[in-house]
């Protein structure tokens, strides 16, 4: 027999355990957010002082002459655009294949390869692109940089697209099939729109991820001190510029590295907000 006092003590124990666990998880969540806030706050604190109109628009200059990161901002945007144009359709197509037609042996090989590719250090991809594109072309180029970033993006986009498409309920597909829709129209007309916001989130994460990549660009886009939009020429990027400023021995350049970091983070935030705005649930 269970007495009243036993029931009460069991209930007390349960309440205590519950509140302890809630507190623990809340503390962890608080620390995670605090660390993020500290990083952002510190970058803003160190970087804000060096930001000026000239800094945002000028090209790099020798120490003591000021200069800026205008060409690096432009270069980063060109590289991201190029990487997205190549990597997103490619990755989404792979994801659609895996989710809609991926039951065979070939698909499981593809899935394994994409998973492995996700884990390959990005510098390896940089060296790879250096070998297959930069060496034959005999020069560093924005094109090579874009390819390298696209290769980093493809597995991320492919797997998130696959996951998102798998979340679309079978009942929707059957509904469309039952109306006489052929398979490809079900995929393009019903499944992809239903998964669109999830796929866009995955694409956005991939873009945000590669916009912070430095290693694949060192051997490919290389960097440049000039404004450039030609894809066969070396091109500057924020990450490589930050790296160059940060490893220098000069305090002035260190400040510029902080400021460039702040710009990069703002850029990523802006991309995030834009994509979220366009893919918000309209219906």
């Amino acid at each position, binding site marked *: 027999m269970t007495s009243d006092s036993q029931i009460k003590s069991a209930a007390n124990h349960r309440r205590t355990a519950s509140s302890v666990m809630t507190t623990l998880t809340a503390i962890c969540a608080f620390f995670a957010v605090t660390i993020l806030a500290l990083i952002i706050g510190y970058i803003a604190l160190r970087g804000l002082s060096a930001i000026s109109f000239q800094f945002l628009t000028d090209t790099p200059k020798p120490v003591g002459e000021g200069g800026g990161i205008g060409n690096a901002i432009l270069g980063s945007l060109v590289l991201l655009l190029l990487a997205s144009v190549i990597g997103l359709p490619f990755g989404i197509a792979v994801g659609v294949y895996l989710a809609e037609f991926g*039951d065979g042996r070939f698909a499981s090989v593809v899935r394994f390869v994409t998973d492995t590719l996700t884990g390959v250090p990005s510098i390896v991809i940089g060296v790879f692109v250096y070998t297959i594109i930069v060496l034959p072309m005999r020069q560093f180029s924005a094109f090579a940089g874009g390819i390298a970033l696209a290769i980093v993006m493809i597995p991320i986009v492919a797997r998130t697209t696959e996951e998102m498409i798998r979340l679309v*309920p079978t*009942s*929707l*597909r*059957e*509904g*469309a*099939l*039952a*109306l*006489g*829709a*052929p398979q490809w*129209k079900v995929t393009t*007309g*019903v499944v992809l*729109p*239903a998964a669109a916001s999830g796929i866009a989130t995955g694409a956005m994460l991939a873009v945000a991820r590669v916009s912070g990549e430095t290693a694949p660009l060192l051997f490919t886009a290389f960097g440049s001190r000039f404004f450039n939009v030609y894809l066969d020429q070396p091109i500057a990027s924020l990450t490589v510029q930050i790296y160059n400023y940060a490893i220098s021995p000069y305090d002035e350049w260190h400040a510029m590295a902080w400021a460039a970091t702040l710009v990069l983070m703002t850029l990523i935030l802006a991309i995030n907000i834009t994509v979220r705005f366009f893919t918000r649930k309209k*219906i």
Partner: protein
Amino acid sequence: MATPTSTTAPVKPPTDAAQEEQTSALQDDGRERAAAKVSVRDLDFFYGRAQALHKISLDVSSQIVMAFIGPSGCGKSTFLRTLNRMNDTIPGTRVEGSVQIDGQDVYAPGTDVVELRRRVGMVFQKSNPFPKSIFDNVAYGLRINKLTSGKSELNDRVEEALTNAALWPEVKDRLKASALSLSGGQQQRLCIARALAVRPEVILMDEPASALDPMATQKIEELIVELKRQFTIIIVTHNMQQAARVSDKTAFFWLGKLVEVNSTERMFTNPNEKLTEDYITGRFG
């Protein structure tokens, strides 16, 4: 309830003689088969190695409501889905035997599945509106099959379908709103409208009211009786009262076999088979 429509020749009066006539027709497979809208002979169905349907033979004549009843897992949904080849989408399934619609073999190699599914519409157990607007949901089948020429015809067909599904008055002012903003019962009627829009000849309904409250169920049932004038309707239901209310004929499935087909009236008062009687009176199932 079970009074057959006098407008159509193939519907036979629910008498003993008619029942016997149909049974013999099924056996010698004469002109009766050509007269039926949907005609199935010796249908076996397999999920991998497991046989889900055993030698099903059944005729459904035009413009009636046929209800499939039976306990869960008896194969009635599976059978329904063989009629518009929805089971093709499930890997590892196999069909043997013959299904004819208007005398054309559904499983013949040259059959256009897309055209078949336009002629044989389907409404599912769980309402499955696309995450699009109300209008776009109904227009979907018309658009993909290119059944309309021009905007005004499309609008007319959408209105016609929504009217037939008894949904038009409730949604006519918000056709652009998301289909997901509708209530459960409205969503199911939208799915019916979507199926009606392509003007199918046969409509398959897989427990269309099982997830709805009694009011919404009543609306769907009234709708089914109304739609019988234009379409042949085959409905799977768990709810025997529902079968009794809406159908002209009832087929009882048990363990993948078709036990009995009869007029609904007779089925629920004096069935031929002992097994049917036991199920209907609630002795098992």
